[in-house]
């Protein structure tokens, strides 16, 4: 019996995808604007030497944030896999471990910076003819170092907020960082007439404020995230670090790429103009990569969960949705950037020679062309990483963020001269696409797959990933009529698999009762809520999985509240759950997830 989907537009995965993407973009844009204002205030109010000290210390910020980024990325990857696989205790342990590692390592780093601040600044360049910058750069470094535990604590906490139904708090914390930082910057510049140490301290204080905001997440008891030393498994330390390595490699690769390209340009005629034009391209990247990473980060998060569940059709739906998002959102932004590139370039380099402005416009347009290609490439590398293939993702990120860009710049320079610097970015993305295609071909060959369509080829999943099509039933419902049709289809499904009469009855009953309960309690038609039901026949078990985006409701907890002296209390829920061998409820990404084994 066919139960039609009420519309791709309102599918749970699509809605969750865009909700997460938008939250990430807002948080990222807010953060980028904050950094931009930091640089403007220092440059405009504190003077050239302070700006130079800021420039010397800035690369260290990337290193500071590296630990937090690696741990946050790796831990979340493990967390989503464990949650998808039903291991809640393991997931709590990973969360606790990631906080301890992030904050702990930052505290040690902070102590190290306080001890070795002078040699570090000398190494960064406050030496020789720039020795006069030592005090100012040391001041900025120390001011920032105070905030290290908070910076990485925020990074780690933010990685989990969407999963634990608190996307808004992540956005609020980003806004808090920016607002507090800007306000304190202005206080330093115009009220106390401070210098670089005070500016660094302002950034640190803003991150402690953000951390306090994020700690409010725990005020609600129903949170999945819980600090639990008992749940820590030492065996998770290495996976957390290795799963986070691709993120670390991407950042280091990005930084090294900039240094190498700057060095290439330093040897060219008109070097200052070239470097200025390239920095405009980097400003475009800094401001707009939030759109790409909002999209791809959501792919990574959802892939982890869906791989943990071994859910092939929903994984395909996720990838289709991400491709559509690239085709709409990213392509739209890149088109706007292309059109407004002269204005964009002029904003950053005022009173520049015509040639420099022309370079900057070209650089911006090259970034605009590269954006959709880059987004598609990162979708694949995040999908790969979400599946646990960190080694492949690591190589892809190295190539995409640095390796191929430098290679193309070197290869194209004899042909197109200085334009090779910015043409290298889109050219590298084309090369990356060819690499990805080759990887997919190899993956399919290794698994001896003969894919019959693009998505089967792209996903390259082993044949035993998910149960065969005939052993599963996937439906989306949003009305009582559809629930009735579904439970009858479930009875037919069970009968077709030789299920005994008792189990057939209880499985169908569970589907009718739980789906009806969702419709009656948290369902809001105006919000286009949907309920996804999945029944799997796996070995001797029947696994029934409900996922909906209705109001958060834990039926297991609700049953625990029922008054045994009031007969027939929560009758439907009791009938549905009592027959199950195991029942597990989680709420992640603002979705109710209930799994029964019957």
């Amino acid at each position, binding site marked *: 019996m066919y139960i039609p989907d009420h519309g791709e537009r309102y599918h749970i995965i699509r809605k969750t995808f865009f909700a997460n993407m938008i939250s990430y973009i807002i948080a990222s844009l807010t953060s980028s604007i904050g950094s931009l204002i930091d640089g403007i205030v220092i440059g405009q109010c504190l003077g050239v030497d302070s700006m130079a000290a800021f420039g010397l210390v800035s690369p260290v910020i990337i290193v500071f944030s590296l630990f937090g980024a690696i741990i946050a990325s790796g831990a979340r990857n493990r967390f989503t896999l464990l949650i998808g696989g039903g291991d809640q205790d393991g997931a709590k342990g990973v969360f606790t471990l990631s906080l301890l590692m992030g904050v702990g390592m930052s505290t040690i780093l902070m102590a190290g910076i306080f001890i070795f601040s002078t040699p570090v600044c000398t190494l960064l360049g406050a030496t020789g003819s720039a020795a006069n910058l030592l005090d100012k750069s040391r001041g900025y470094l120390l001011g920032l170092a105070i905030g290290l535990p908070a910076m990485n604590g925020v990074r780690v906490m933010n990685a989990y907020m969407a999963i634990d139904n608190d996307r808004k708090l992540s956005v609020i914390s980003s806004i808090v960082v920016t607002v507090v930082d800007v306000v304190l910057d202005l206080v330093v510049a115009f009220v106390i007439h401070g210098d670089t140490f005070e500016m660094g301290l302002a950034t640190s204080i803003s991150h402690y404020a953000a951390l306090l905001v994020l700690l409010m997440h725990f005020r609600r008891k129903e949170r999945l995230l819980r600090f639990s030393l008992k749940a820590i498994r030492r065996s998770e330390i290495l996976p957390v670090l290795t799963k986070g390595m691709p993120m670390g490699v991407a950042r280091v690769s990005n930084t090294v790429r900039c240094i190498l390209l700057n060095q290439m340009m330093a040897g060219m005629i008109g070097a200052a103009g070239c470097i200025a034009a390239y920095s405009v391209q980097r400003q475009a990247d800094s401001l707009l990569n939030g759109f790409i990473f909002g999209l791809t980060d959501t792919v990574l998060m959802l892939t982890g969960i869906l791989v943990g569940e071994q859910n092939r059709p929903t994984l395909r739906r996720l990838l289709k949705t991400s491709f559509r998002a690239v085709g709409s959102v990213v392509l739209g932004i890149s088109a706007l950037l292309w059109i407004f590139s002269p204005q964009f370039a002029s904003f950053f380099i005022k009173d520049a020679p015509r040639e420099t402005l022309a370079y900057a416009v070209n650089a911006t347009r090259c970034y605009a062309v590269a954006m959709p290609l880059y987004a598609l490439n990162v979708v694949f590398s995040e999908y790969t990483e979400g599946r646990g293939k960190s080694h492949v993702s690591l190589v892809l990120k190295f190539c995409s963020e640095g390796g191929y860009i430098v290679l193309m710049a070197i290869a194209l320079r004899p042909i197109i001269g200085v334009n090779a610097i910015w043409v290298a970015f889109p050219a590298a993305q084309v090369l990356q696409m060819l690499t990805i295609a080759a990887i997919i071909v190899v993956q399919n060959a290794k698994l001896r797959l003969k894919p019959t369509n693009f998505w089967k080829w792209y996903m390259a999943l082993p044949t035993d990933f998910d149960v065969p099509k005939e052993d599963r039933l996937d439906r989306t419902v949003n009305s*009582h*009529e559809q*629930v*009735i049709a579904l*439970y*009858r289809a479930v*009875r037919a499904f069970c009968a077709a698999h030789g299920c005994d*009469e*008792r189990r057939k*009855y*209880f499985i*169908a*009953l569970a589907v*009718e*009762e739980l789906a*009806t309960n969702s419709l009656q309690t948290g369902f809001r038609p105006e919000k286009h809520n949907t309920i996804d039901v999945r029944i799997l026949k796996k070995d001797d078990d029947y696994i029934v999985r409900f996922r909906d985006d209705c109001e958060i409701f834990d039926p297991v907890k609700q049953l625990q509240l029922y008054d045994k002296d009031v*007969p*027939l209390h929560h*009758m*439907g829920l*009791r*009938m549905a759950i*009592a*027959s199950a061998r195991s029942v597990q409820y989680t709420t992640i990404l603002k979705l109710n997830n209930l799994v029964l084994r019957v």
Partner: protein
Amino acid sequence: MSNTVFELNGKILTVKPDGELDSMTSPIFEKELRQHLSGVDSIVVDFEKVNYISSAGLRVFLAVEHTLEAQGAEMKLIHVNEHILEIFDLVGFMDVVAVE
């Protein structure tokens, strides 16, 4: 559920529902049943042809039992299959409605 059979013998009503009593068919069944309640002293519901009942169906019988109590009548369910009996036992249904 349009093929429920109602047989009135004096003041004893025999009801023979057929198939499923789920959240869609139960309201129809209840409406039909209530049309036969007045003046009845006893209702016997024969579950021989009922292969499925959910909480919606159980609520119909609970509501009808309440109505019958008020009019001094009684109801019992007979020929209930083992799976449905298990459901009744799970929720304590038999403490309220007589089942043979």
